[in-house]
Each structure stands twice: as C-alpha cells, then as structure tokens.
C-alpha cells in the first residue's frame, strides 16, 4: 500500500523531470536552464500557490479557526532551528556560525517541496485547508531571526541593521508573493479564478516539471560537494526531516487539520529552505560555510523529501488520523 503510493509519487512526471536533471548534471551534460527562466518560473509558482490558496479560502470561508494555525506556523519556524542547532553544535561539534545557519534553513521551508506534495495529494484526490498556504508564507522567514540570534549569542558583532533584517523577514519576495497571491485570490474569488485559471492553474504542473529539471541540475552540481561533507552532517540532513515532521504531525493533530493538511504541515516542517534563507545567511552570518548549508538543504534533504518523504509523511498522517 505505502509502497504503491511511493511508486505513484516516484513515477510522476514531476519527480522524473527532477531525476532527468540529476542525471544530466551527473554526466556533465551541457544542459542548462537560463537563470532568468528559473527565476521567472519560481515567481510564477509562488504567485500561483498563493492564488490557489486564496480561491479555496474564498470558496470555503475562513473563520477564526485559521488564527491558531497561523500562530503555530510562526512558532514552528522560530523553534525548529533550536533542536537542529543543538544537535549540530553539541552532537557534531560544528562551529557556531555554520550550525546556526544550517539550523535556520531547517526552520524555514521549501516551496517546491510543498508544490510537489500538493501535486501528489491532488493526484490522490485528497484536499486540504486553504489557509495552509498562509502557513507556508508565515513559515518562510521567522527561522532567519532564530538563526541570527543563535549565531550572535554572546558576541557583540553584527554587520547589519535591525531594519534590514525586519525587511527581509516581512517583505521577502517569496512572502510577498504568497501572501499577496492569497489575498488577491481571496478578494477575487471564483470570478477571478475563472479569468486566470488557464495560466495559474492549468499550467502549474508542467511549469513545475521544468523548474524541477533545473533543480535536478543544481543538485547534481552540488552532489560533488557531498563527498566533502562529514558523514554526521549527511545523517543530520536525513534525520532532521522526519524529526521535524513529527513536530508537524503533533501540531497538525492539535490544530485539528484534515489528512491533507496534516501531511502538508509535516512536509513543511521537514523541508529546508534553499532560496530565502541562504541569501539572508550570506549577509547576516558571513562566517558560516555556504557549502555546508546549501549542500545539505539541496542535495540531501530536498531529494529525500520529494521522493520518500512525501509518501512517508502521508502514510503516517493517515495512520495517525485513523483515516
């Protein structure tokens, strides 16, 4: 049963495009997605995810029920870096800046992982709460604050203004698109959806295929750096997702989310950022080693989550909900 589900996931065009990118990268093919195309695709995906969440909110109505969920999202993003940091710093003896930066990545989320899981659930005919998209947006950036706090604790150095940090956390491009899309979807409702559905809904999976091809290429390039990582770090990249997913499971059950909602929240917790957080860490924690956080997040945790993680978390959520 779970193997069946896992196979369905692995044999989707999405995952296979990722694998194609991986292989092309591994054999050093000259295949390359131009950077503006990749950026354009990521803008499109985030706006589409926001809009779709908003339309589903407009359809179902949203009550005060969403408020605790949004608070919980912020809490998870702020707190998940703590166990990650503790393990990296005290378990593996990693230097403080790098441990803090890596931890920040695991508090935040990966939007492509989320999109893949959403596609998987649709394929299985499982719905989810519209406000999950708001949780996605909210989980993106608070982890940055925790990461910087962990990195600077006990030191006085800082090379950036508090204002810059606030801007990054609140007005980050991904956050703006997700929240903005959500509001636009919610305000325009079914009428708005009818107007732009061919672009934002129908094309979604195909565009995601192309983006995953590019991520596959990037992961393969990172793959070379894998060999230089200590085994302990790779173990962390594989174990942190299930641990974080467990936190997501507990929270999801407490919030009374549906099967789809619990699965997605587990996955959000399990996933690690590779867009917003690295950019922030470069500036805020320049002494952290990007080779470590980018490689762990992209080349270890991302592939694990989209291949095995999605069906695994789904199976566990189903079992926990007795569904």
């Amino acid at each position: 049963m779970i193997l069946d589900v896992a196979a369905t996931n692995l044999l989707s065009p999405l995952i296979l495009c990722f694998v194609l990118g991986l292989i092309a990268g591994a054999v050093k093919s000259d295949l390359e997605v131009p950077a503006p195309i990749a950026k354009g695709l990521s803008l499109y995906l985030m706006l589409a995810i926001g809009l779709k969440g908003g339309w589903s909110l407009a359809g179902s109505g949203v009550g005060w029920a969403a408020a605790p969920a949004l608070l919980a999202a912020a809490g998870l993003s702020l707190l998940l870096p703590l166990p990650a940091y503790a393990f990296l710093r005290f378990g593996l003896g990693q230097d403080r800046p790098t441990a803090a930066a890596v931890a920040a990545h695991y508090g935040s989320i990966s939007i492509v992982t989320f999109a893949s899981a959403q596609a998987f659930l649709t394929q299985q005919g499982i719905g989810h709460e519209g406000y999950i998209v708001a949780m996605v947006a909210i989980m993106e950036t608070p982890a940055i604050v925790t990461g910087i706090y962990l990195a600077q604790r006990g030191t006085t150095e800082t090379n950036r203004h508090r204002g810059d940090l606030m801007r990054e956390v609140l007005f980050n491009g991904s956050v703006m698109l997700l929240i903005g899309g959500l509001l636009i979807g919610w305000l325009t409702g079914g009428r708005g959806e009818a107007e732009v559905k061919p672009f934002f809904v129908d094309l979604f999976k195909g565009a995601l295929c192309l983006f995953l091809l590019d991520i596959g290429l990037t992961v393969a390039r990172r793959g070379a750096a894998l060999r230089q990582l200590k085994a302990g770090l790779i173990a962390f990249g594989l174990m942190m997702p299930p641990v974080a997913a467990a936190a997501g499971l507990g929270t999801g059950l407490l919030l009374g989310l549906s099967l789809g909602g619990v699965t997605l929240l587990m996955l959000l917790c399990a996933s690690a950022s590779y867009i917003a957080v690295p950019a922030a860490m470069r500036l805020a924690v320049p002494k952290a080693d990007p080779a470590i956080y980018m490689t762990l997040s992209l080349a270890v945790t991302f592939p694990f989550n989209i291949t095995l993680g999605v069906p695994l978390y789904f199976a566990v959520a189903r079992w926990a909900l007795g569904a």
Partner: protein
Amino acid sequence: MQTFPRKKIELIVESAYLSPMLAMIDATGATGYTVIRDLIGRGRHGERGREALGENSNVLIIVICTPVIADRILEGSQRILGDGFGIVTVSDVQVLRAEHF
C-alpha cells in the same frame, strides 16, 4: 584629447553584498558606480554563479574616482567584507571630463 588621471576600483563580491557596498560607495562621495551582474567565478570559496537558486552569484562593481575617495572605498569594502567573499583591485585610468569624477 586631454585626459585626466583617476583611479578605477573594481570589486568582485557576492550579490548578497551588493546593496551594502553601494550604500557605502554612495557615502564616500563617489560620483557614481556601474555594476555588472550574473557573473560566474571561482575563488577560495569554490565555484559561484552557476546556480539559479540561493542567489549564489557574483557582481562586479566599477567606480571611477579620485585617489582620496578610492582610499575610502578600499577601507569601506574591507569593513563590509571582513573575511567574506570577494576581491578588490585598483588601477590607473584616464578620464575625459575631470569634473565628473
């Protein structure tokens, strides 16, 4: 044509450092700057610029200025970069309109 000696500073840094660098350059009194984006490069910190994700690319900032301002920019750049990623070079150039720099 008559030309005048000035300094040309070239900073190659990660794109993450672009806005603090430009703010610093503005503060030194330089009359302008020019930026080339989307470079690829290799240095002590490995390869950069081949990934669309994570803003892992370099930019090249060019400033034409007087020796006095050049010195301020060199100092400012060291303050911002610290042990971070990037390289800085200075060279001599001739400019046409002295009053511009």
